C-alpha cells in the first residue's frame, strides 16, 4: 500500500530536519510523520477512549494521593455532618475527605468517574463502527480481538474502581460479585475466599479493598496500557481503514498526513474530550457516595444498579428465573451462573469469533483496507443489530425497577416483557435490518441505473408527464459502486462430477448453506452505462429470490 500526500511546506520540513539532524533517524521520521490518515467522524470514536484513558490515569493518580485503601473501621467526624458519628471503613472516610476537604478533590473524583463512563461508552461505539463497516476483516482480526480484550478488562477495572470507596452501592455490587464467584461449580467457594481473603465484607484481615486497589491502580491499567500500545502500533503498521470515497482504493490510502494535519486534529480532539469531561464533571454530579452511606451488610437500597457497562449483567440477573439444581449435596446455582456467563459470553465470544466465521463462510481471504457500507453486507449488519438488540434489552432490564417507577408500569410486567423480548427482539431486529439493507441496495441500483430525481417535470408531445432524472454525482457514484456484488455460486459438482473443494462432509455442507444465505438475495449494483431510462430494477431474474425470502 503506497501513500500519497502533497509535498510538505517548508516550515514542516524544517522542523523534521531539526529532529533528523539530532536523532539521525531521517527515514523513520520521514516515513512516519507523513503517515496518511483518512478522515471520517466515526474514526474519532476510538480516540475518545484513548484520551479518556489518559485522563483516567492522570485523575486516578491524583486520587491515590489521598485515598486510603483500608477496611479499618473508623468513626467519621468531618465536614459532611450528616455522617458524623457513623462507623465506616477508612476507605469510605478517605473518599469523603477527598470529596469535601481536599481542594478540587470532588472535581477530580467526578472527572475520573465521568472519564470511566466515557471510556467504556466510546469503546462500545467504536466497536460498533468497526463491526458494521467490516473494518475487522483481514488483516485486522488481531486488533479486533485486542479491542474485545480491552473492553472486558475495562469492565473489570470499572467494577473494582467503583467498589473502592466502600459505600453502600458498591458493597452491593461486591456482594453480587461474591454470589457470581460462589456460583461457579467446584472452585467457586475457593475462588471467593481467594479473592476476598475470607468472608465478605470484612475478610479475615480486611483484605478486600487493598487487593482491589492494587488490581485497580496497578495490574489492570498496566495491562490495558500495554494493549493500547499494541492496538496503536498494529493500527499504525496496518494503516487505518478508510471509507469508500474518491481516490480511495485497496492499494492506496487517501487522507491527511499525520504531521501536521492529523496531529493538529487529534490534539484538538484531546482538548474536546477533556472539555466535555470537564463540562460533565462540573455541571452534573456522579456517584454521590455521601448519599449512599457506608457499606453495611444489613442495609440495601432500591435502585441499586452498577455503572452502565455492567448493566447488561444486572439485567440478565434480574430477569433470570430462579433455577437451582441440587445433586449429591451440591447446589448448582443456575439462577446466578447462567446470567453471569451466558449473555456476555454469547456477545463477546460471538464478536471474537465473528471475523473468522465470516472468513470461513464467505471464503474471502483477501486483505481489506476499504470499509464496506453496512447495507452491502446485510447478514453482518442484521446479526450486528440482533446483538445490539439483545445487549440493549438486557441493559434496559438492569434498570427495570427505575423504568417501572418512572413510567408507572408494573415491575413484574417489565420482567416478563424482557424475558420474552430477549428471545423475540433479536430475531425481529435481524429480519427488519436485513430488509432495510436490501431495500437500500435496491435504491442504490436504481440510482445508478436511472439517476436521481431532478424535480423537473417534463411533458412529452403526447401529453405524458414524467420527471427528468439526472445522472448521479461522481462522488456519490464512487460510494455506491463500492459495493462488491455477489459472485454466482460455484456449481456443487464440476463437469466430471467432482464436488467443489470445501463442500465435502457435514462442515462443507454447512459452509455452502451459510454462504448461500450470505449472498442469495444480493441486489447487483453496477453501472450499465444507460441513464434516464425507466425500467424495473427488480427484474425477473431476482423475483425468484424474492419469493423465497418472503415464503421463509
Amino acid at each position: 500500500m503506497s501513500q500519497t500526500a502533497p509535498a510538505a511546506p517548508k516550515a514542516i520540513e524544517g522542523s523534521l530536519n531539526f529532529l533528523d539532524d539530532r536523532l539521525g533517524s531521517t527515514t523513520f521520521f520521514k516515513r512516519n510523520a507523513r503517515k496518511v490518515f483518512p478522515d471520517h467522524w466515526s474514526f474519532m470514536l476510538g480516540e475518545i477512549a484513548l484520551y479518556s484513558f489518559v485522563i483516567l490515569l492522570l485523575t486516578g493518580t491524583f486520587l491515590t494521593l489521598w485515598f486510603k485503601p483500608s477496611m479499618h473501621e473508623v468513626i467519621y467526624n468531618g465536614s459532611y455532618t450528616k455522617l458524623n458519628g457513623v462507623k465506616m471503613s477508612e476507605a469510605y472516610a478517605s473518599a469523603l475527605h477527598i470529596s469535601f476537604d481536599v481542594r478540587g478533590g470532588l472535581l477530580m473524583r467526578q472527572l475520573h468517574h465521568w472519564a470511566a463512563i466515557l471510556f467504556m461508552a466510546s469503546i462500545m461505539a467504536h466497536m460498533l463502527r468497526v463491526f458494521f463497516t467490516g473494518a475487522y476483516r483481514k488483516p485486522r482480526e488481531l486488533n479486533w480481538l485486542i479491542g474485545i480484550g480491552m473492553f472486558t478488562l475495562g469492565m473489570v477495572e470499572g467494577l473494582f474502581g467503583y467498589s473502592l470507596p466502600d459505600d453502600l452501592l458498591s458493597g452491593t455490587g461486591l456482594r453480587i460479585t461474591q454470589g457470581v464467584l460462589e456460583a461457579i461449580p467446584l472452585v467457586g467457594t475457593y475462588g471467593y475466599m481467594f479473592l476476598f481473603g475470607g468472608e465478605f465484607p470484612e475478610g479475615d484481615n480486611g483484605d478486600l479493598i487493598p487487593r482491589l486497589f492494587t488490581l485497580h491502580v496497578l495490574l489492570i491499567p498496566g495491562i490495558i496500557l500495554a494493549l493500547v500500545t499494541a492496538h496503536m502500533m498494529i493500527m499504525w503498521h496496518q494503516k487505518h481503514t478508510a471509507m469508500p470515497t474518491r481516490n480511495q482504493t485497496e492499494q492506496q490510502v487517501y487522507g491527511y498526513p499525520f504531521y501536521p494535519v492529523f496531529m493538529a486534529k487529534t490534539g484538538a480532539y484531546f482538548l474536546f474530550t477533556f472539555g466535555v469531561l470537564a463540562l460533565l464533571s462540573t455541571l452534573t454530579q456522579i456517584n454521590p457516595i455521601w448519599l449512599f452511606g457506608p457499606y453495611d451488610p444489613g442495609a440495601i437500597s432500591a435502585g441499586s444498579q452498577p455503572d452502565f457497562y455492567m448493566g447488561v449483567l444486572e439485567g440478565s440477573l434480574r430477569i433470570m428465573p430462579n433455577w437451582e439444581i441440587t445433586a449429591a449435596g451440591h447446589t448448582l446455582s443456575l439462577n446466578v451462573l447462567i446470567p453471569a456467563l451466558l449473555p456476555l459470553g454469547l456477545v463477546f465470544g460471538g464478536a471474537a469469533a465473528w471475523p473468522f466465521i465470516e472468513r470461513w463462510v464467505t471464503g474471502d481471504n483477501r486483505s481489506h483496507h476499504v470499509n464496506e457500507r453496512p447495507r452491502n453486507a446485510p447478514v453482518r449488519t442484521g446479526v450486528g443489530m440482533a446483538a445490539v438488540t439483545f445487549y440493549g434489552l438486557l441493559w434496559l432490564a438492569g434498570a427495570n425497577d427505575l423504568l417501572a417507577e418512572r413510567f408507572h408500569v408494573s415491575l413484574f410486567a417489565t420482567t416478563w416483557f424482557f424475558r420474552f423480548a430477549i428471545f423475540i427482539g433479536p430475531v425481529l431486529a435481524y429480519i427488519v435490518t436485513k430488509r432495510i439493507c436490501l431495500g437500500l441496495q435496491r435504491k442504490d441500483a436504481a440510482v445508478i441505473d436511472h439517476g436521481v430525481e431532478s424535480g423537473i417535470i417534463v411533458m412529452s408531445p403526447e401529453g405524458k408527464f414524467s420527471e427528468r432524472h439526472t445522472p448521479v454525482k461522481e462522488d456519490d457514484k464512487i460510494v455506491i459502486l463500492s459495493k462488491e456484488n455477489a459472485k454466482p455460486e460455484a456449481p456443487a459438482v464440476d463437469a466430471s462430477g467432482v464436488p467443489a473443494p470445501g463442500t465435502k462432509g457435514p462442515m462443507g455442507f454447512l459452509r455452502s448453506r451459510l454462504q448461500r444465505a450470505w449472498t442469495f438475495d444480493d441486489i447487483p449494483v453496477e453501472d450499465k452505462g444507460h441513464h434516464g431510462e425507466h425500467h424495473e430494477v427488480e427484474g425477473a431474474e431476482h423475483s425468484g429470490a424474492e419469493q423465497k425470502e418472503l415464503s421463509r
Partner: protein
Amino acid sequence: MKRFTAWRRRPWAGYAVVLAALAAIGVLYAGFTPQNDRAEAAGNAQAAEDLQNGRQLYNKNCASCHGQNGEGTKDANGKAIAPSLLGVGAASVDFQVSTGRMPAMNPGAQMPRKRPIPEFNVDVKTDYEEPEKREAAEKQKAQAEKNLADLRAYIASLGGGPSVPTAEQTDPDKGNAAAGGKLFRTNCAQCHNFVGSGGALTGGKYAPPLDTSDVTPTQIYEAMLTGPQAMPVFNDTTLTPENKRDIIAYLVKTREEPNPGGNGLGRVGPVSEGLAGWLIGLSLLVLAAMWITAKKPKKLKKS
C-alpha cells in the same frame, strides 16, 4: 342540754343525722360546682357539634366505601373493597386525607398522592395583597383544618388508635440526621431508594418519593406509625419516637441539601449517570468529531 340528750336517744335520731349530713353535702356540692357543670354542658355541646361535623364529612366523602359506621365493605366474593376504619386512629386519617390519597378517585394497585379535595386542603395560598381575598383564603384554610380535625376525631371516636404526632415529635431540627440516615438505610431505603427518591414494588405498587417538600414531617411520622398501603407498620417498639424523628431529620435535611457536585440527575444512582454519559458526553464528542473532520468548502481547500 337535757332536751338535746333526750332527742339523741330517740329511735329516728340516727336516720336524721345521716339525712342531715347528706343534705349538707348536697348543699355544699351544689354550692361549689354549678359553674363547672354549665361549662361542661357547653363544651359537650361543642364537642358533639364537632363530632357531628366529622360524621357528616365522613358520610359525605368516605361512607360509600368504608361503610355507614366505618366497618368497611366487601364485594360479593367476600374480598375487601375498603378496609374497616375501627381502630385505625387519628394518625392514619390525617395521613390518608392530608396526602390526598383519601377520598380515593379510582381503586388501583395503590392510591396515588394527589391534591386533597378542597374540604380538606390545608395547603391553600393565603398571602394575597387584597385583605378580603386574604381573609377568605385564611377562612378557607381554617375551615379545612377544622374539617380534618373533626374527621380525625370522629374516626378516633369509633375505636381509638394512634393519634397525630406533636410538633415536637416531628421536628427535624431536634433529630439526629446521622443516626437517622443509618436507620433509613436499614429500614426504608430498600423500597424508597437511598435518599427517598421512591422505588418500584411488586404488582404495580410503589414506594412513593419522599424527597419533595410537600411530604411533611408529620406525614412521614404518621406513615411509619400506621403503615399505609404497601408499607409495613414501624410501631414505637420497632422504631422509637426518637428513631422516627431521626429519620425525619435525615430525610428533610438531605432533601434540602444542595448537590455539591452539580446537577443531581434525580439522585437515583448510576442509571441516570449512564444516560447522561451517552446522551451528553458522547453526543457532544460526536458533534466535535463531525466538525473537525468536515469537508472544507472548496475555496479553502488550497490551504
